[in-house]
Structure formats: structure tokens, C-alpha cells
């Protein structure tokens, strides 16, 4: 692919903290390489702002290799930008041409309050995990893998659900700001395995109760979450969570 450079106009959401109102600021960046990642482009802008004596833009990032889930940015109306199954850190500037204008917003959801600029507080996800996204087994020697046979299909489905990186793009993309895709991935990857089965009912009930308490919306099966998820988490997990939950709701032993 041919290398080129570009000049861009960026409209970035600036907000001091959660108590103050935010607004968009317009910036120009010059000489951006088509081989940069999107975050590197923001780094260039931030250096420029520091040199000018201005406040750099706060944004979350950590691994910059698509696995930590921190790089929350809503770019031109799309969670993590326009590429399918891609986090912001893996979006590259070859997507853009010279003269483009890019609008960058934080995840917008009542349950993800803005900390500053593009950084939002996603600890509501941590509290959902604390409510049941674990297996309570006493540790000891790891047993022989062959003593717990697991069907290939179930192992694969569980693994696919476990790929969720907790980034919150599903919430950001959902018109209802619902966290069902995230919760369904976390419930599924445990419920499908024998280790997770003993606590499956409590897990579904407790995690959903925490999800509701945190102020996420309810799922109306719109499907924008699946379209924006960087890890390809499927809506079938939401069907499974509904089965788990309805089963637990009417179970005689709980």
C-alpha cells in the first residue's frame, strides 16, 4: 500500500470533568502518515497542544494492540471507528484522505460517566463482574484435563464468548445504552462449561440485577452491539442469557 501524508480537521469533545458541561473543539493536524494508528494521530495532536501550552486531550488506552479494551472513542458516529471488529488502537490512518474532518466523542451512556474529555468511567462493568462473573472453586492441584470432558462445540462457543474484552462498545453503540451483549458474553462463557454450571442460576440473576442497578437500558434486540463489537461477540449469547435468566426465574430450587 502506498504511503501518503494528510492534513485533517478534528472535532473533539472536551469536558473538564463530570460536573461541567462539555463542548466540541476544532483542531488541525498536519502531515499525518497513512501508516499511523488512530491513537498515534491523537498523540501527535496532544504534543502539538502541549507545545502550544494547552491542555492535552484525555483518552484511555493501554495495550494498543486490540486486547485490553481501553481505547474507547466514538469516531464519526461509530464505536471504535468505521472498521468492523477493530478497536480504536487498531484503526489506521489509511482509512482517511487528505482534508477529511473527523468527529470524536466519548462513549455516551448514563452508566459510563465522563471522567474527562474522551475518558469515561466503566467501573459499572467491574461491579457487574463482581456480582457473579466468576467461579468459586477451592483451589488445589489442577486436575487432569481429561477428567472433565467438554464437547468441542461448547468449548468453542465458550471460548468465543470469553473473547469479550469489556470495552463497552456495545453499550456505546446501543440506542438503549444496554449492556446485554457484555453481560451475555460473561454469563455464557462460564455457563457453557462444567466449572461454571453449579452457580449458573445465581450468576444470571445477580449479574442482571447489578446491570439494571448500574443504570443500563434494557435490550430491544436491535443488534447495533453485535455490529460494533470488536471481538465479534454474537447476539446468540443474548439469547443464551435470556434462557439462563428465564430458567433461573422459574426454577423451583432458588
Amino acid at each position, binding site marked *: 500500500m502506498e504511503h501518503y501524508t494528510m492534513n485533517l480537521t478534528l472535532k473533539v469533545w472536551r469536558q473538564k470533568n463530570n460536573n461541567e458541561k462539555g463542548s466540541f473543539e476544532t483542531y488541525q493536524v498536519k502531515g499525518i502518515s497513512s501508516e499511523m494508528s488512530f491513537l498515534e494521530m491523537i498523540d501527535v495532536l496532544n504534543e502539538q497542544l502541549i507545545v502550544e501550552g494547552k491542555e492535552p486531550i484525555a483518552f484511555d488506552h493501554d495495550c494498543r494492540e486490540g486486547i485490553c479494551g481501553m481505547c474507547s472513542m466514538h469516531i464519526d458516529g461509530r464505536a471504535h471507528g468505521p472498521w468492523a471488529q477493530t478497536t480504536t488502537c487498531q484503526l489506521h490512518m489509511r482509512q482517511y484522505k487528505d482534508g477529511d474532518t473527523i468527529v470524536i466523542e466519548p462513549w455516551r451512556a448514563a452508566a459510563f460517566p465522563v471522567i474527562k474529555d474522551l475518558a469515561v468511567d466503566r467501573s459499572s462493568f467491574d461491579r457487574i463482574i463482581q456480582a457473579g462473573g466468576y467461579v468459586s472453586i477451592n483451589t488445589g492441584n489442577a486436575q487432569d484435563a481429561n477428567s472433565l470432558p467438554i464437547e468441542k462445540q461448547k468449548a468453542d462457543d465458550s471460548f468465543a464468548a470469553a473473547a469479550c474484552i469489556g470495552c463497552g462498545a456495545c453499550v456505546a453503540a446501543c440506542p*438503549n445504552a444496554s449492556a446485554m451483549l457484555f453481560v451475555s458474553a460473561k454469563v455464557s462463557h462460564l455457563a457453557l462449561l462444567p466449572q461454571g454450571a453449579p452457580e449458573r442460576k445465581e450468576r444470571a440473576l445477580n449479574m442482571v440485577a447489578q446491570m439494571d442497578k448500574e443504570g443500563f437500558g434494557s435490550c430491544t*434486540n436491535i*443488534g447495533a452491539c453485535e455490529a460494533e463489537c470488536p471481538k465479534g461477540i454474537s447476539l446468540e449469547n443474548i439469547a443464551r442469557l435470556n434462557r439462563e435468566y428465564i430458567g433461573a*426465574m422459574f426454577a423451583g430450587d432458588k
Partner: protein
Amino acid sequence: MNWNTLFSSSIGKKLQMGLTGIFLILFLLVHCYINAQIFWNDGGQKFNEAAHFMANNPLIRISELGLFAFLILHTVQGLSLYFKNKSKRTQSYKVSAGNATSKWYSRSMAILGTLILLFLVMHLNHFWVPSRITGLETYTFNGVEYHNLYAKMQLQFKDAMVVTIYTLGCISLAWHLMHGFYSAFQTLGLASFKYKSLIKTVGIAFSVLIPLLFAAMPIAFFLDLIK
């Protein structure tokens, strides 16, 4: 048992939507079958007989009460969920994904439902109220007294305005079902790997065929295709 979660949790409320939605779908099927009797073009005798049966069978009259209750629950819960969900994003996006990540009709269930509701008020006023409450013209055939609902249809559907509104009502219903049919099965947890494409296909067929048949009724009367 955690029955209370049926009323307190988000999934419980969704379950109410899904179950009442499926009940309404079953009702549409029966309603459409009965009304399609007008297409015999026999001056409405078969249709009036079917309507007579529906009006006089005690089991059906009891289900009718259930139907009203479920329709009200579906409407109240649906609109309440809609406004609650709206409140979960206090600051809206300047640029939103729109049709790039979802279908417009999936995002428009509340407005489509409200259009259906407005249509229903008019529709009940045209047929249900006279037939059950204020009274309709009757006639006797083979010693049985029938309400002439058929004549009432003929009269109502002479009016181009009424026919237009009925057609728009059917179009709203079609789009509501285009999302709703699949969505209800997803809510019940049934739209999983094996059945998803089957449910989607049946859903699309149902959402097109049933409203089309319904819309064909006022249009056929208006164009004098049935007498």
C-alpha cells in the same frame, strides 16, 4: 422461584413484551383467517357466520378479555421501556451510526406501535363498538339471527380516507412485525444457532403476508372487487 423478577428486572419486562407480542401475533392469525372469508364473494354470508361464531363462543369471549389485557400490558410496558431506555443516554451523540449498524424499523418500535395504537382506536370504533355495544343491523338466515358486519365493512370502506388510514395501519404493523417477530423469539431465548435463520425467514414472510391480506380487504371493498 423468583417471580418478582418478572416485574422488576429488565429481562422480566422484556419477557412480558415477548409473550404478549406472540399472543398478539396468534390473534392476528385468527383475525386474518376469519376476515379472509369475505373473499368468498358470497355477499358476506361465510364471513358473518364466522363472526357470529366468534361473538357467541364463551371461550373466545374470555380470550377476548385476555387480548385486551395483553394489548394494554404490551402498550404500557412497551412505552414505559422506551422512555426508560431514552433516559439512559442523557447526552446524545453529535454523529450517530444510523443505518450503518442497525435497521431503522428495529429502532422505531415505539413509534410504529403508537401508530398501530392510533389505528386500533379508530378500528375498534368502526367494528368492535357497534358489534358488541351500540348495536348493528341484523338479518336472519336459516333461522339464525346474524349481525351484518359485512354490510358495515362495505359502508366503512366506501370512504377513501378510511381506506388510506387502514392501509397505513397495515404498513405500520408490517414494519413492527418485521422486527417484532424475530425479536420475541430472541427475547424468549429461542433464536439460537439452530433456529435463527428459520425464525427470521418465517418472521419476514408473516410480516409481509398478514398485513398484505389485511390491507387487501378495505382496498377490495373500495374498488368494488367484492360485493
